[in-house]
């Protein structure tokens, strides 16, 4: 239900920013931004990475000072020197990375910084009572005595919301709140957001997911390159239009792909068992087969063993039981180089930690898997001419936006860093691509590019194992979808027969009585 009613009786904006400008060295992050938020409204702020959303929110929340511009709260001009000022003016923020202390209880987290004290002793009981009241009032279902580390992500997020409400916030800023949620948890969040808005809380909802923004917002403001491109309403626009506003050109949202033509078996996993760093079994007797010319998507909420599975397959983690065969060759517990040499490409989960040497130039990063081979090395001595030539060629071919191929990788934007990895991995003779969260944190333009590369490689006969927490990505790219929960594949279905609802339930560990859950590829 879009709250039409709430928009009519809200003439006066509760929050208004006028002409906000913020210059960082080399970047104009915010360029005369105007924005207004009405009472009880859900106002989405949409934009690519680097569009200036976070800068603007940090200015409103008092973390940065603007170079120019004014902030008005409830018709009065205010200056935010620190988050304390923002809190005082009733602004609460739920950060993308939660600001919760795992070893504290919910109540302790909520009272932190604005504790009530009776005779020098923390009034835990009073706080718990207040948390229960708030929880009840807005349908949040938060237990004040639970330990935060025991709570699932969705509930932790609600604790953050209660934390803001406890400080009497009536303006809530939610920074990419759905990035960490399962589809069901996201739906819960949307229900809560509507409830909050109905009770007069005004919400700024930051996102780059078009579908969600259309679903939940009353109004949508799009930022690009630090400027407001426009403000619209969901009724007046659609995904394609919003994407074009965001990126500044037409974007192909739907991944165009032909029917998969699966070939011979490329990857075979037999009864794989893997432990995590704490010695807990996180991949449990998992078996899987992957064929040339298909994309197998592994859907699942993060932390269900996907990362460890990928690490085991790529030689980064010890395999405690079972076997991994790539093109019929046993690579169980082989070193990463051996696995790379049988024709495996790995696009790792954390591009900065595992994908790149950030302090190396792009050219060197592009030969990390092949530097010891001819023509890049002769008798143990590097051939810089060949490395440079290779770097220039790949930067051009994969459209890496960099001032020069010789700048260090850390200077590149996230999207371009990812392109460097993709260029390095896909430019070798490969038969298997293992991609873990290949588009996490990237903007629409880069996502589009990487998706197309993956499908191109599939069409050339590569087998692709795609791990992603983004259900949309899994559904857009995969030919078959495997749902992973608690270290097991709970079901494999052809993408054509998978729907979001069912996948979401499976991802949450709910047993779904699917008519034909497992199928073999013909």
């Amino acid at each position, binding site marked *: 239900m879009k709250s039409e009613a709430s928009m009519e009786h809200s003439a006066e904006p509760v929050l208004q920013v006028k002409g906000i400008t913020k210059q960082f060295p080399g970047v104009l992050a915010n360029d005369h931004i105007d924005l207004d938020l009405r009472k009880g409204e859900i106002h989405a702020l949409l934009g690519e990475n680097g569009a200036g959303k976070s800068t603007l929110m940090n200015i409103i929340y008092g973390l940065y000072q603007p170079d120019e511009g004014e902030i008005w709260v409830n018709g009065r001009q205010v200056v935010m020197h620190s*988050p304390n000022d923002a809190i005082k003016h009733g602004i609460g923020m739920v950060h993308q990375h939660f600001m919760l202390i795992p070893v504290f209880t919910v109540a302790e987290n909520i*009272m932190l910084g604005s504790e009530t*004290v009776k005779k020098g*002793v923390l009034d835990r009981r009073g706080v718990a009572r207040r948390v229960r009241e708030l929880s009840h009032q807005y349908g949040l279902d938060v237990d004040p005595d639970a330990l935060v580390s025991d709570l699932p992500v969705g509930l932790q997020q609600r604790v953050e919301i209660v934390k803001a409400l406890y400080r009497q916030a009536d303006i809530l800023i939610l920074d990419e709140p759905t990035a960490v949620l399962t589809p069901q948890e996201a739906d819960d969040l949307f229900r809560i957001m509507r409830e909050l808005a109905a009770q007069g809380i005004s919400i700024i909802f930051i996102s780059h997911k078009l579908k969600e923004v259309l679903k939940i917002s009353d109004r949508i403001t799009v930022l690009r390159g630090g400027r407001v491109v426009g403000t619209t309403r969901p009724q007046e626009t659609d995904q394609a239009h919003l994407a074009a506003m965001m990126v500044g050109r037409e974007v192909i949202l739907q991944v165009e792909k032909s029917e998969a033509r699966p070939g011979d078996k490329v990857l075979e996993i037999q009864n794989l068992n893997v432990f995590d760093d704490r010695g807990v079994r996180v991949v449990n007797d998992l078996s899987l087969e992957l064929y040339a010319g298909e994309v197998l998507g592994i859907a699942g909420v993060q932390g269900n063993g996907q990362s460890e599975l990928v690490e085991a397959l790529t030689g980064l983690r010890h395999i405690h039981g079972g076997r991994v065969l790539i093109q019929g060759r046993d690579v169980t517990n082989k070193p990463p180089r051996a696995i790379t040499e049988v024709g495996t490409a790995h696009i790792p989960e954390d591009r900065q930690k595992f994908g790149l040497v950030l302090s190396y130039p792009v050219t060197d990063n592009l030969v990390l898997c092949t530097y010891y081979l001819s023509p890049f090395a002769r008798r143990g001595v590097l051939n810089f001419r060949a490395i440079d030539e290779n770097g220039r060629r790949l930067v051009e071919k994969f459209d890496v936006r960099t001032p020069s191929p010789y700048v260090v990788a850390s200077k590149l934007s996230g999207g371009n860093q990812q392109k460097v990895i993709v260029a390095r991995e896909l430019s070798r003779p490969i038969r298997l691509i293992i991609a873990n969260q290949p588009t996490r944190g990237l903007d629409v333009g880069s996502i589009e590019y990487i998706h197309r590369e993956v499908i191109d490689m599939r069409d050339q006969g590569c087998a692709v194992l795609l791990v992603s927490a983004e259900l949309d990505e899994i559904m857009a790219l995969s030919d078959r979808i495997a749902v992973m929960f608690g270290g097991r594949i709970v079901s494999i279905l052809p993408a054509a027969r998978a729907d979001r609802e069912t996948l979401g339930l499976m991802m949450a560990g709910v047993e779904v009585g699917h008519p034909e859950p497992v199928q073999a590829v013909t």
Partner: protein
Amino acid sequence: MDLRRFGFILLIIVILIGVVVLVGGKTVPAGTIIASMLATTISVATPLTLGAISGIFCERAGVVNIGIEGMMLAAAFFGWFAAILCNSIWKMPAMPSLLIGVVIAILTGGLMGLLHAVLSVTYKVDQIIGGTVINILAVGITGFLNRQLFFEKGSIFGGQVPHAPGVLPRLPIPILADLPVVGVIFRQQPIAILAVVAVAVTHFVLFFTRWGLRTRAVGEHPRAADTVGINVIRVRYANVIIGGMVAGLAGAYFTLESVPSFEPLMTNGRGFISLAAMIFGNWSPVGAWMAALVFGAAQALQINLQFFRQQIPPAWAFLQQAYVVGLIPYILTMIILTGIIGRTTPPAADGVAYEK
């Protein structure tokens, strides 16, 4: 503190006391020996307990402090120096001299804490390096001044080690101290009593007050604390300085309560053992105190065995070697730190400088 570690502590203490009872039980009643061992244990555990409390204040706020040893040593020296100065140069009575000595020791510790805070919080020096700097600094300063002030001709004491004002007197706890046999446990000197009080106070402060909640928050997730308006830098400074002051009080134990003299390097690794106690106690005051008592008991063994040297059976002749028994606290430290007796979890942001 989980049962396994508590059981380990109890077991070690029982073994240590048991050894003395077995050796000396023929000439002295077992009850007397046990009471005497417990009394000595509490007394000699004092610097370890206080050292561990000092570490808890720092590390709960996210600052690793391996400089406790140096803080203690410097405080021991300056406290002693102040007491002698008052007593023999300014001719003040013994008691006020000793009390001024304790205050100066605490202030010395506080200053060292301030130094550690400046290095590790403001200048974000690696905290291990910062602590090492403090340890080396303390050894150097105390050794140098000790020679210059007391043994050089023309120094204020004229090359003569002056007569010390003695040590802090015992403060018997009324009624309890008069009990037969166990009374001795309750006739302790003031810093030993303060150490036990400090355990209770620290526990209360850490877990029941606003100060404690904020301190722990800063040690676990400083950015989260920052976003709710807590001044991370200030909280860290305050706790590290308090930690330094507690280490200073521990230092006073050496020269104003235990023996009336100063010797170079006299803290003898106690600061490091108290860190082991802190870790074994899982950064909780009560747990750390228990662990400190284990080390105290090991030391009490050495002291009490002296009385019964003649009665040590030939089969246990190695116990006659004081240095063999003296090794026990250090061996215990190594066993405990291997983590065989249960893993512990430090505060999440321990040792990490906070960058805005």
